[in-house]
């Protein structure tokens, strides 16, 4: 396998089928060395399946790819010694203590004797586990357990780290801290591939891939996605009965897209000449009292929701053509 100087991960037309179900449907992308690459998508979109194929623990049905320069079809065992992987359940041995878990993974990764102690102390410090060295892992709060799992996954100082929904079920403060750790590793030159379904986390990544129903529907930096993929202008509208308004105005020709964001509406319009006044009038005409209309820059959520809706529309259209 040729040495790819730029990319840590290269994937071409990757497919994974489970029986009749296609979990990953021909995706292609690369992850550059040293970047934090976010894999974004709703539950069941194929994120975990993809990450498992990259880690060499699941064989693809079709397609090719390399991870750290090793083939994901034929050199899976070589991949395993060059990566760190943290699976969804941050799987540690619950009835082993913190130190025993670290010692176990040290042994499995064959950390040289002279480095073992340093690495262990590094993990304990990084995860703030000084007080819990002898505690069974099962009694640790989620946030600490997750940091310990990260520590165990990077004991052998891999250059490439795969994290599968590392922050699911963790409170916002600990999520923030966890991302600080990811940045720290990234600064040391570690390439981080992380999946998430939190859109706010996606903003933290250098680059993103949006996965939906096994297909990669968009990729790029968060800024690129925002500027290139918004078709039209996004307006934030505060009005009474926003839910009714959304349902009633959905079919208005002027409006590309309308969705509920908390107590406000996000309306996407295609016509550049649209003004606050025209949106306000439109709602008033239909009997809604408008408090405020503001032009906003789109969030990733707007883009993702928009992309998924247009994807679904085109799938529906295809279905109808078939009939």
């Amino acid at each position, binding site marked *: 396998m040729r040495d790819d100087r730029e990319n840590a991960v290269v994937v071409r037309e990757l497919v994974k089928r489970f029986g009749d179900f296609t979990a990953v449907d021909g995706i292609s992308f690369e992850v550059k060395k040293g970047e934090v690459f976010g894999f974004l998508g709703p539950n069941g979109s194929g994120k975990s399946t993809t990450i*498992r194929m990259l880690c060499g623990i699941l064989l693809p049905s079709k397609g090719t790819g390399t991870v750290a320069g090793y083939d994901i079809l034929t050199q899976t065992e070589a991949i395993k010694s060059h*990566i760190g992987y943290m*699976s969804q359940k941050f799987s540690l041995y619950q009835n082993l203590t913190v130190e025993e878990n670290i010692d176990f993974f040290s042994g499995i990764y064959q950390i040289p004797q002279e480095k073992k102690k340093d690495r262990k102390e590094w993990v304990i410090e990084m995860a703030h586990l000084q007080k819990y060295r002898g505690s069974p892992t099962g009694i640790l709060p989620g946030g600490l357990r997750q940091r310990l799992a990260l520590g165990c996954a990077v004991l052998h100082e891999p250059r490439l780290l795969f994290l599968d929904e590392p922050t699911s079920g963790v409170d916002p403060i600990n999520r923030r801290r966890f991302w600080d750790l990811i940045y720290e590793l990234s600064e040391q030159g570690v390439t981080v591939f992380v999946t998430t379904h939190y859109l706010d986390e996606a903003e933290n990544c250098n680059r993103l891939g949006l996965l939906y129903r096994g297909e990669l529907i968009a990729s790029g930096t968060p800024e690129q996605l925002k500027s290139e993929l918004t078709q039209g202008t996004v307006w934030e509208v505060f009005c009474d009965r926003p839910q009714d308004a959304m349902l009633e105005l959905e079919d208005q020709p002027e409006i590309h897209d309308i969705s509920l964001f908390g107590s406000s509406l996000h309306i996407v319009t295609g016509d550049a000449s649209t003004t606050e006044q025209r949106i306000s009038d439109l709602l008033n005409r239909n009997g809604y009292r408008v408090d405020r209309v503001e032009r906003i820059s789109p969030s990733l959520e707007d883009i993702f929701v928009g992309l998924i809706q247009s994807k679904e529309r085109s799938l529906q259209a295809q279905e109808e053509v078939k009939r």
Partner: protein
Amino acid sequence: MNFGRISAMTRKEFIHVIRDPRSIILGIAIPVILLLLFAYALTLDVDHVPVMVWDQSDSTASREFISRFKASRYFKIKGRTDNYRDVEQAIDRGDILAGLVLPRDFAQRLEARRPVQVQWLVDGSDANTATIATGYATAVTQAYSEEVVLQDIRKLTGKVLERPLDVRPRVWFNADMESKNFIIPGLIAVIMMVIAALLTSLTVAREWERGTMEQLISTPVKGHELIIGKLTPYFIIGMFDVLLAVLMGKFQFGVPLRGSVVLLFGMAAVFLLGALSLGLLISIFTKNQLLANQLALLTTFIPAFVLSGFAFPINSMPKVVQWVTFLVPARFLVHLFKGIYLKGVGLETLYLEAGLLALFAVAMVGLTLVKFKKKLE
């Protein structure tokens, strides 16, 4: 093969066992309990058969006859009665196994040397015990009537008549003919089989269920290192169980061990390797603790118990079933253990069983290594 990784696996697995009360109970307590329970309960010896007597004759002759039953260690007179109802009820309740009924004219007929019929009512629900007890009763009765006849002859001819034929039994291997000597060696083998497969059947399935296996297979640990690392602690526990069982056999039950101790432990080790791998194989296939547990019980306990020949002789099974027993590895170990324990024989006689046992172990270890994949499905 990397010994560092194997020892990391082994250490981790040991900690699991020590911290998990279930494993300790299963690994140490259950074998001891089973051994005690079965060794005491599963005696095939028939003695002290409880008998109720209805002596209608109530004469010197009848008391003399009944005293023969009393004197025998095979019978225990549990009561006397004067009606059939009591006998029937006592049999129904299970208080007695048999009733002995002597007719009203017992003494007169015996005096007149006319045939006397003595009634023996036996509970046949346990056919084996009933047959043996009836055999003893017949023997006691025959011995008594023989004596009467011999006395008559002496009176008539003045000569002491010798019995023309006499069996002089000499029992080999289990001279006291105690069933525990025969049961315990086989029992050790059966317990080994059950415990071994049960112990390992959980280990891989548990890791799949808890998600730790996914983590483990993403590391550079090799499949065979994982298997060896997982087998080692249970192998040590299993060998400890054998030691415990052998010591209990010697000191608790006084079962003599005539053959080579080294051969005994060697064969136990070969067998354990196979049985532990079988458990692991079940665990690899099912990936589910409950299913693995039940499958391990089903594939080991019942065949080992019924078809290993530890208590029920294989020779008296139907031919087809006899062939089936060759698929039960415990059969070979039971045979080996009985041979080593009771007959003191070695590999020169037991090579076939030893060979088949080794084949079982090699096949199981091999299959486990082949079937364990560091991949998800």
